[in-house]
């Protein structure tokens, strides 16, 4: 087995995966909402880049706009729909699933069911020994690391992060301390949606734009959040890295169809033995 392309592949795929899970993890861990529309937020991010490119502007500009646009959509949805569901997480799942269907089929209608390509800001690959390494996938790895660190600092080092964590730990006390939990939740949801939009914008040149872009990621993303343990940002990231790395690494050694199943099997076994999440002991 060739080590360079293997390591690069595992890193690149895990990076995309972490990027997708970041937003989902923040919403799930901070608000306790399993957002089934997350895949469609990813899709909206990708669609924004496609629209921006269609007007003749470069795709990187679309990638900057994508998180903003999707965050606004997320904010509107939170104010109109999601906030009614905080007391009933199961209903929230169904509600977000309905939103997902509306968004997905809406975009499908706009695209006429077609597939479209979006060009990467960096085209081609560079040589490393006699291997070719994709420039854009390398850039995505770097951007993911930056975004990950940024999110961590936001949650741990800023006033807003403190308010978010406070609202999660004890909403009543947070409100008593003068924090508007309603606003904090809205901002958190918008942040999660914006991260999904960014993930969509960055990944669309690697795949192609179509209404089902976010679907294959959704179930595995939930798996990642479960693995990492609810209520922890670092846990979601670790879970995402693990699921992403296994998904990418297994097809190198076994049949891809079997690999797909095995990812779930491994995750279920881990959840069985570490129901509190991967990092539970470390946190306690």
């Amino acid at each position, binding site marked *: 087995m060739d080590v360079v392309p293997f390591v690069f592949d595992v890193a690149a795929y895990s990076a995309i995966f972490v990027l997708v899970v970041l937003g989902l993890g923040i919403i799930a861990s901070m608000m306790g909402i399993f957002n089934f529309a997350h895949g469609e937020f990813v899709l909206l991010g990708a669609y924004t880049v496609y629209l921006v490119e269609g007007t003749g502007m470069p795709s990187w500009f679309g990638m900057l706009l994508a998180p903003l646009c999707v965050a606004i959509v997320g904010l509107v949805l939170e104010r109109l729909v999601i906030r009614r569901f905080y007391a009933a997480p199961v209903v929230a799942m169904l509600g977000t699933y309905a939103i997902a269907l509306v968004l997905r089929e809406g975009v499908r209608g706009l695209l006429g069911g077609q597939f479209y390509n979006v060009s990467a800001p960096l085209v081609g690959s560079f040589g490393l020994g006699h291997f070719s390494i994709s420039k854009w996938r390398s850039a995505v790895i770097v951007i993911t690391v930056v975004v990950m660190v940024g999110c961590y600092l936001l949650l741990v080092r800023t006033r807003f992060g403190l308010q978010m964590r406070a609202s999660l730990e004890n909403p009543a006390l947070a409100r008593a301390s003068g924090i508007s939990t309603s606003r904090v939740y809205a901002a958190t949801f918008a942040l999660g949606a914006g991260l999904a939009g960014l993930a969509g914008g960055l990944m669309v040149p690697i795949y192609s734009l179509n209404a089902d872009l976010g679907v294959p990621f959704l179930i595995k993303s939930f798996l990642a959040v479960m693995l990492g343990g609810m209520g922890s940002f670092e846990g979601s990231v670790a879970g995402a890295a693990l699921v992403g790395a296994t998904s990418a690494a297994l097809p190198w050694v076994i049949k*891809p169809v079997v690999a797909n199943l095995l990812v779930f099997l491994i995750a279920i076994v881990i959840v069985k033995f570490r129901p509190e999440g991967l990092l539970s002991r470390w946190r306690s």
Partner: protein
Amino acid sequence: MSQRDEVAGRVRSYERRLFLQRAGVLAGMTAAGAGTWILNPRGAWAAAPIKVGIATDLTGPISWGGIPNSQVARMVIDEMNAAGGLLGRPLQMILKDTATNEQLAVTRVRELVQKDRVDVVLGGITSSMRNAIKDTIVHRGRTLYIYPQLYEGLECTKYLYCTGPTPAQQCDTFIPWLIRNGGKKFYLPSADYVWPHVLNKYARKVIESHGGEVVGEEYFPVDHNDYSATVNKIMSSGVNVVFNTTIPPGVAALFKQLYEAGFSKKGGRLACVYYDENALNITPAHEIEGLASCLDYFKAVNDPFGNQVQDKYTRLYGTKNPLTAGSAATGMWRGLNLWAEAVKGAKSVRRDAVSEALDHARLADGLGGPCEVVPGTMHVRMNMYTAVARKGTYEIVEKSKGLVDPRECL
């Protein structure tokens, strides 16, 4: 009446009104049948219409194929009506959205054959859809069924006619061309469902009988999106031809990763037998430069007949969902016209009479040239074209010598 009673009364009356409103909307939806469109012939006709049922995926993941299918059907039926209908009767098109959902589709085609009592059903894009609805149409519904998409073959149900290309038609001339213009070492990355499995079996036979070799045959979940392991195997084993049967959306990632690994640049040849003008949008043009495909029609055939049909289609429906071979639109065109010929020949719309006439129906001219049903096989002999993608468009590099045999149901 106390205040409370008054409020309760108002609530009750409101509930009643709401209930009536909702029931009304629901009844209206049920009566019209969601996902159904009836397109009546224009003008005044004395005779009762011949009913043509079109069941296709207007929504859901296969809508890229269903939308052009429905549009081409509408265009052809309008043309037939403008030319005086069939047997002096107009044609009425009843369109059902099967929504890329086999269970729903069975209900919809049951409506077509039982409630609307259509004289023929055309439609279905995927093989799983054909398998789901054929029994309802052909056996229980006792209705003629025409399936328009290129497919894996082996469908020999009586009264079920397949008007798209078969593996023999897509491989017999194409694979020798690939060996001459690519090389002998083949790799077969494929999506894990029926079409790639059966097609690969046939392709492997043709590859080996022409002195080629299959280095690898690999199956992926249909929505797989990371092919690095496979691309690495392809690059390190000196493969000349990647004969791809992975499908969108996964195919975009595969072609991109092959491009980034320099497969085509180092002399490799990409091949994919469903790639048509529509598929050119899936990846940027430079990533599939040199990709070869083999279908029953390309715009690049550039014949007066095809151009005229294309111009009319584009005038009517624009360019968003073009008329292409990979989306079964050419099969739909062929199916409707062959069926019309058969109705004229049989002077009846009864299933047995039409089927007997359809068994040897032919079109002197059509999309991609003439075509004819091979008697006793329910498949169609047609021209096949090998085309290569260059700068975002196709160039025809080889045309079959005469009509190619489907070699099914012999």
